[in-house]
């Protein structure tokens, strides 16, 4: 059934179709309508879940952790300062190997206070051991939540995942979304059966102390699991395609990258705009393409390397900035590409922070700049785009 809905409702339907059994959440702009919708579904009896209103995001994640240890499929959603408040327990969730799925509505960190899109909140959770999926459309949000449960709950993964939607651009913008049949989702995603769980009358401790002689072995296992999540995700998406008839492009979606001279790498909703720009430039025979990072963790290193060895220039757009370094996507891609025999010229464009519009015109200017830079590498490989006071005009 197709319905017009916001990204937030797509998240709520994704959790409902996945039959989340425990939902613990704290409201925060612009995530609120996700948990409001889920609370409605629970109170109307459409979703058989325990809804736990908590007093903070830290508690929301702690409640999900406890419920997941008891064998329940759990879901939560947050944004920005809510996500960063969770930071400690995010580490706990992955270390305890709990396949929790959460939506993060990616929003700028304050100050300056902002409620608009920016990836700083998600990027700041890079090292927590969570899988991270950036989405371009509301359909992808819904589909990725269902796929994320299947990937995360597989025995060789058992790690949590965050599904990332851009604040307002996806969270509060309506698009047609196909809602799959519950029966089809049920056969695609069977109920959650963990190997170990807390049971009444049986004392057990999870995540207890280990001495230095055994700590590394547990971290090594998590490393293997994250590695496995890469191939597992590709397989799950193919299976999803067979059942539901659509896919979203693996861990790194490539759009018109064949024979491209310059490729823009970006994540999130801006990729939709960038595809339009690529089409317009291709119509003028300008050889450009787009690579969209869907999974930031596990990072698609092999896919990036395969792409990089075929192009003259890689423009990496980061919607966040790591102070003292560069954009995190850029740093990651540069690290991947280092081992390529033939390396493209690379440049990092910092754009769209705090909800600043990244217009088609700006993206076109980025492509034009990169086409020049690819032939004549300039000094300085990180450029801030569209900042008032800088001499360069982007609009």
């Amino acid at each position, binding site marked *: 059934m197709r319905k017009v809905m916001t990204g937030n409702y797509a998240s709520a339907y994704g959790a409902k179709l996945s039959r989340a059994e425990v939902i613990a959440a704290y409201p925060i702009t612009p995530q609120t309508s996700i948990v409001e919708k889920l609370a409605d579904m629970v109170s109307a009896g459409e979703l058989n879940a325990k809804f736990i209103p908590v007093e903070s995001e830290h508690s929301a994640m702690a409640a999900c952790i406890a419920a997941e240890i008891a064998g329940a499929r759990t879901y939560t959603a947050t944004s920005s300062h809510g996500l960063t408040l969770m930071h400690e327990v995010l580490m706990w969730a992955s270390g*305890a190997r709990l396949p929790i799925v959460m939506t993060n509505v990616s929003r700028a960190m304050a100050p300056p206070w902002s409620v608009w899109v920016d990836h700083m909140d998600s990027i700041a959770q890079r090292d927590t051991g969570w899988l991270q999926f950036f989405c371009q459309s509301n359909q992808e949000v819904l589909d990725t939540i269902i796929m994320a449960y299947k990937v995360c709950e597989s025995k060789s993964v058992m790690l949590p995942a965050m599904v990332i939607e851009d604040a307002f651009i996806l969270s509060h913008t309506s698009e047609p979304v196909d809602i799959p049949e519950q029966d089809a989702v049920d056969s695609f995603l069977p109920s959650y059966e963990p190997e170990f769980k807390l049971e009444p009358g049986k*004392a*057990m*401790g999870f995540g*207890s*102390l280990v001495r230095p002689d*055994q700590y590394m*072995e547990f971290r090594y296992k998590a490393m293997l699991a994250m590695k496995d999540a890469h191939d597992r995700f590709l397989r799950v998406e193919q299976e999803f395609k067979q059942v539901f008839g659509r896919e979203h492009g693996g861990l790194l979606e490539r759009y018109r990258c064949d024979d491209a001279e310059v490729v823009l790498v970006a994540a999130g909703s801006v990729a939709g705009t960038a595809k339009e720009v690529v089409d317009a430039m291709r119509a003028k025979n300008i050889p450009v393409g787009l690579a969209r990072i869907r999974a930031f963790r596990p990072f698609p290193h092999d896919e990036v390397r395969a792409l990089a060895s075929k192009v003259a220039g890689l423009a990496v757009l980061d919607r966040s900035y790591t102070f003292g370094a560069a954009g995190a996507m850029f740093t990651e891609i540069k690290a991947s590409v280092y081992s390529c025999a033939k390396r493209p010229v690379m440049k990092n464009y910092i754009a769209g922070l705090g909800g600043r519009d990244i217009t088609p015109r700006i993206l076109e200017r980025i492509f034009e700049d990169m086409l020049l830079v690819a032939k004549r590498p300039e000094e300085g490989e990180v450029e801030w785009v569209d900042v008032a006071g800088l001499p360069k005009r982007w609009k």
Partner: protein
Amino acid sequence: MTKTYQELPLTPISDAPSTINLTGYWRVIRPVVDKEKCKRCTICWKFCPDGSIVLVDGVPEIDLNYCKGCGICAHECPSKCITMVQEGQE
């Protein structure tokens, strides 16, 4: 004995409560109760941070398997009937 990563579960899981860890061996000083002087006020029992005091007819008995020897009971006792004694001494 050290286990290989293949032998270990996903996360450290124990099938026993943490009471299997006898933390009393951390202790260097030990509370000794003068049961004659004890007024059965149970303040020591309320203050013990480790639940290592068991009341027998209102009089404290120290569970030395878990008492870490922090001395809070001796400090709080209004009738000064608990004294901390160096381990290894009477």
